[in-house]
C-alpha cells in the first residue's frame, strides 16, 4: 500500500533536535516541574501557618542539600517557563513567528533562564551571608 511509505510524524527518535522543538518540549517539562514545585510551596506555606516548629521542619528540609537541589530545579523551571511563556504570548499576538526570529528568541530564552537563575541565587546567598 502506498501510504505505508509516508513519513510518520512526530517521531522524536528520528528527528534532529532543533531549538524550536527543544524549547517546546522543555516548556511542557518545566510546567510539570513547576507542578511539583507548587507542592513544595504549599507545604512551606501551610507549615508557616501551622506554627514555628512545623515551619522550622520545612525550612530545614528546604535548606538541606536535597532541598536546595530541588529549589535550584524549581528556580530554573520557573525562569524558563516564564521567559518562554512570554515568547509564546508574543507568538499568540502574531509577533516573531518567522524562522530566524523564532530561533533567536529560543536561544534568548535559554540565556535569560541561565542569567536570571544565577542572579536569584547570588542575591539569595548574599542576603543571608552565605548561610
Amino acid at each position, binding site marked *: 500500500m502506498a501510504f505505508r511509505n509516508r513519513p510518520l510524524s512526530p517521531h522524536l527518535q528520528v528527528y534532529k533536535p532543533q531549538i524550536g522543538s527543544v524549547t517546546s518540549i522543555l516548556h*511542557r517539562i518545566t*510546567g*510539570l516541574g*513547576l*507542578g511539583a514545585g*507548587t*507542592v513544595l*510551596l*504549599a507545604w512551606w*506555606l*501551610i507549615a*508557616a*501557618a501551622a*506554627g*514555628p516548629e512545623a*515551619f*522550622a521542619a520545612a*525550612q530545614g528540609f528546604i*535548606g538541606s542539600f536535597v532541598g536546595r537541589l530541588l529549589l535550584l530545579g524549581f*528556580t530554573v523551571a*520557573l*525562569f524558563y517557563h*516564564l521567559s518562554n*511563556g*512570554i515568547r*509564546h*504570548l508574543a507568538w*499568540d499576538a502574531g509577533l516573531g513567528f518567522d524562522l530566524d526570529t523564532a530561533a533567536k528568541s529560543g536561544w534568548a530564552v535559554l540565556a535569560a533562564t541561565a542569567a536570571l537563575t544565577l542572579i*536569584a541565587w547570588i*542575591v*539569595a*546567598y548574599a*542576603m*543571608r551571608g552565605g*548561610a
Partner: protein
Amino acid sequence: MSEPSLRTPLARVTGLGSAKDGTGHWWLQRLTAVALVPLAVWFVASIVSLTGAGQGEIKAWLSNPLAALLMVLFLATGFYHLKLGLQVVIEDYVHGHGLKVALLIANVFACVLLGGGSILAVLKLTLGA
C-alpha cells in the same frame, strides 16, 4: 449560507468546535499567563528576600496587606494555570478513557485542595488567627 457546508447552522452559531469547548480553555490559559508574568516576578523577588527566614519573618511579611493580596492572587492564578496545563498533558498522553477521566478529576481535586490550603495558610498568617 451561500457555500455548501457539512456544518450545521447551529454549530456555526455556537462556535464551540468538535471538542464542544470553544476557545475557553485556550483563552483562560493565556489570561492567567499574562497575570502570572508580574506576579511570578514579584513572588520570586519576595522569596529570595526571605531566604532562610524564620516563621516570625514570614508572618511579618504577610502582615503587609499588599503582600498578602499579591500572594493570594499569585496562588489562585498559578493553581488555575497549573490545572489548565496538567489537563492538556493528561488529554495528550493518557488514552484509556477510564484512566483519563480519573486523572482529569484527580487533577482538579489536587489543584483545588493544594491551592485552597495554600490560600487559607496565607489568610491565617495575615489575619494572625
